[in-house]
Structures are given as C-alpha cells and as structure tokens.
C-alpha cells in the first residue's frame, strides 16, 4: 500500500503547490499599480461578450487558412523530404534545390514572405493571377511551413535504421516500394509530435495574413479595439487560438498512444 499512499501524497503536494503558486501570482498582478487600468482595458467582460461573436466569425477564416495550408504542406513537405533523401549523383540537382529551398524559406521572416507575395503577386496584373489577399497569404504560409515541415520529415526518414531499408531491398522491393511501405510509415509515426508542434505554429501564424487586410480573428480584434479604445478583443482572439490548440495537442497524444498500444498488442 506504500506506493498507493505515496501516489496520493504526491497528488496532494502537487495540488497544494499549484494553488499557492497561482494565488501568489494573482495577488502580485492584482496589486500592481496599473492593475485597475489594465483590468478595464484588457479584461472588460462586457467588451469580451460583445466582440466575441464577430471575432469568432472572423476566426473561421483562420481555421480555413490553417486547414487548406496544412493539407498542402503535409504533402509538399513530404515530397521535398523524399527528394532530399534520394541517393546517388543523378539526383544531386534535386537535393541541391531542396536545400536551397529550405534555407531560403526558413531564413526569410514569414511576415516578409506574406508581404512580398500578398502585395507583389497581384501587382503583376496578370489576368490569371488571383487578387485575393487571403489566397496569397495561404500560398506564403505553405511556402514557409513546407520548408520547416520537410526538415521534420527528413529527420524522421533519417531516424529509420538503414537495416530496415536493407531488409526491404533484400526482399526484392524497389527503392520506391521500400520508401513507401517500410521507411516512410515508420518515419512519419516518429515525427507526429514535432509535426504537431509546427502545426500549432502555423495555426497561430494564420493571424499574419491579417497584415494583408484579410479580416481574420486578429484583424477583426484590431478593428474592434480601434473602435472602442479597449484591448479586450485581443484577449478574446487569444482565447479562440488557445481553444483550437488544446484539442490538437490532445489528439496527437492520443495518436502516439494508440500507435504504441497497437504495436504491443497481441493479435486476436
């Protein structure tokens, strides 16, 4: 019974220290000289309630941008990672291109890529180039995040021991078959947590598209704040972003757990 007793004691201690910590923090903040003013401008309940419906509607655009961009990124980044993993001198141009791409788009700040594409591309005045700022914002996010995510995939591919590929090839599978059936499935499983990390980043960076004028949650809260001289709409937008992140994080935990359980399960 000792371990059960220790477990219960551990929970109690954790609970107690958490309560003490947050009480102290709350006391410190609410006793700050500027607190009444901050409370009025950032944590105004009426303001929060009034601005929430509009910001929620605008937030749907963030979700849309996120979903469209993510679908493309998942595929394009994998293609890029695979291109960079191709062996032999024949594929040198592919590898070089992949490296140049990753270097460039990880080097340039996301907001600059968004600005350059969002203002530059429509300015070309080509009839077939879309004028929508949201469109170009999505393209910019895809370009930037594909560079990051391809690095994650690549780390996953390199983490699969070469003996796995050797075993597949020794059975007569082609390089492509081995990659598709043996290497990539293991690589992708291993990088699910870091992949999710990048997607949380992407989800937040959808707010940068507002810079082009698309009315997403951040832009909407900016508009509301400017109209009322109150910053509570920013807090409302933040709440929405966090609300989307948490289920995403729990979903990944579940995926990882499910994979582990399945591997350790005996067949029926």
């Amino acid at each position, binding site marked *: 019974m000792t371990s059960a007793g220790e477990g219960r004691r551990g929970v109690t201690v954790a609970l107690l220290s958490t309560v003490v910590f947050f009480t102290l923090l709350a006391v410190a903040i609410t006793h700050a000289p500027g607190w009444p003013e901050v409370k009025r401008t950032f944590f105004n309940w009426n303001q929060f309630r009034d601005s929430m419906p509009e910001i929620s509607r605008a937030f749907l655009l963030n979700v849309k941008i996120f979903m469209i961009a993510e679908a493309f990124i998942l595929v394009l980044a994998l293609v890029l990672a695979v291109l960079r993993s191709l062996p032999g001198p024949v594929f040198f141009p592919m590898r070089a291109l992949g490296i140049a791409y990753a270097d460039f788009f990880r080097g340039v700040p996301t907001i600059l890529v968004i600005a350059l594409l969002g203002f530059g591309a429509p300015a070309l005045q080509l009839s077939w180039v879309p004028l929508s700022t949201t469109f170009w914002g999505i393209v910019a996010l895809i370009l930037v995040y594909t560079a990051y995510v391809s690095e994650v995939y690549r780390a996953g591919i390199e983490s699969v021991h070469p*003996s*796995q590929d*050797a*075993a*597949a*090839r*020794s*059975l*007569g*599978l*082609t390089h492509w*078959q081995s990659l598709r*059936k*043996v290497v990539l*499935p*293991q690589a992708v*499983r291993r990088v699910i947590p870091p992949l999710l990390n990048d997607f949380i980043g992407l989800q937040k960076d959808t707010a940068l598209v507002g810079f082009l004028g698309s009315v997403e949650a951040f832009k909407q809260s900016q508009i509301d704040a400017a109209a009322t001289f109150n910053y509570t709409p920013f807090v409302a937008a933040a709440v929405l972003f966090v609300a989307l992140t948490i289920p995403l994080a729990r979903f990944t935990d579940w995926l990882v757990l499910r994979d582990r359980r*399945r*591997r*350790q*399960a*005996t*067949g*029926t």
Partner: protein
Amino acid sequence: MSEALVVDGVHKSFGQLEVLRGVDLAVAEHEVVCLIGASGSGKSTLLRCVNLLEPIDEGRILVEGDEITGRGVDVNRVRRRIGIVFQAYNLFPHMSVLVNVTLAPMLALRIPRAQAEAEATTLLERFGLADKRNDYPDRLSGGQQQRVAIVRALAMKPDLMLLDEVTSALDPELVAEVLEVIRELAAAGMTMLIATHEMSFARDIADRVCFLDEGVILEQGPPAQILSEPKEPRTQQFLQRIIEAGRL
C-alpha cells in the same frame, strides 16, 4: 550437380579497408555451405555482396549461371531469387507478422493478397508460428522474430538462402529453435550459404565448411576435416580460440 552460386575473384573495399581480397567459392544446388572465421574476416560482407546490398569492386558473381554483378542487371529481380536473413532479424516493426511475410510477395511478385496470405499461413504453420500471425514483432521473443524473418525470406520462394549469423543476437536458450528451422530447410533441399559461429551446428548441417581469413577463403572441405584436422595454422588457431571459449 549444377552450381547454384559461383563467386569468382570478388574484391570489396570500404574506403581504405579491403574486406574481401579475392574470394572464390562455388555452391552446388541443394548444398549447405557454412562460412566460419573471426569477426571482421569478411563473412557478412560476402553475403551482402551476393545479395547485391554491397556493390563489388572486382570479380563476378553468378547465380544459376547468370551473372548478377554485370552492368544493366535488374537488382530487384536478382534479390527476389536470393533470400537473406540478418543477425538482427530486421522485421518491420509497424507491421503484423502476416504483413511482414506477405509484403514482398505482393509487391515484388504481384501475387494476389488471398494467395499470398494462404501461402504465408502455410509457411508460418510449418514453423510453428501460426498463432503469431497477427502479432507485431515487438511482442515476439528473439527466436520467434528470427523464425519470422526466415519465413519472410522463404515466402519469396528463393533459389538460394543466405543466413548471416542468424543466432548471434539470440539468448542461448532460443538458439535451438532457430537452428531447428534451418535444419529443416537443409533437409528439404534448400541451397544455403551460412555465416555462423555455431561450430557444432556447422559440423552437423554443412556439406562443406569454408574458413574465411582476412578476406580470402583460406581452407575448405567437409566439416569433419576442417573442424577436426585443419591443415592451415590460421584455421587451427581460430578453432583453438573457439574451443577455449567453449563453443565447440
């Protein structure tokens, strides 16, 4: 007897290190040849070269009369005829036993799933693994994993099997079950080239034993002769060490 495998003057270097320095070896159909020799003598490298997992620098390798080391040879086609089993099993951890076994027949030989699964099940039954068909490799003992790896190679119906120290990673009590499988394959007439440290097993199963030393086959002959009355001083030395280690 026709030659299932001919290795002709094969050289292989890794950078500065010359691992194979002109290996000549012929294995007849249905023959079981054991390669013995110290670690680093080139046993594994030779097997990997025969499977074309390593390109050779010089020489030729022929399987049933066809040169497999020439230019323009379809390596995938060659590998389908040659099964290899590794020391570390190398099963695919994200697939059940059945999928491990049926993957290559379905992809490389284009056998329909139903047929591939039926054949795999027959093989798994033959080697006492039928109840493990839906398990994932992590759940199996080392001996079971290695038997699955052998079944996986057999599912391609190879003309020749290469076994690379298949019992070296196993706990002693699990070695027997794997050797039993190999013994059964030998009895069924499978042509095999086996790198091994199990001298008593080699004596028992091999038609011929080859002693590999510093990248060449120094001495070869019937197991009784090589293991009991070796002519070469290097072979005597090697066996002396094995006897001292209590492995013969």
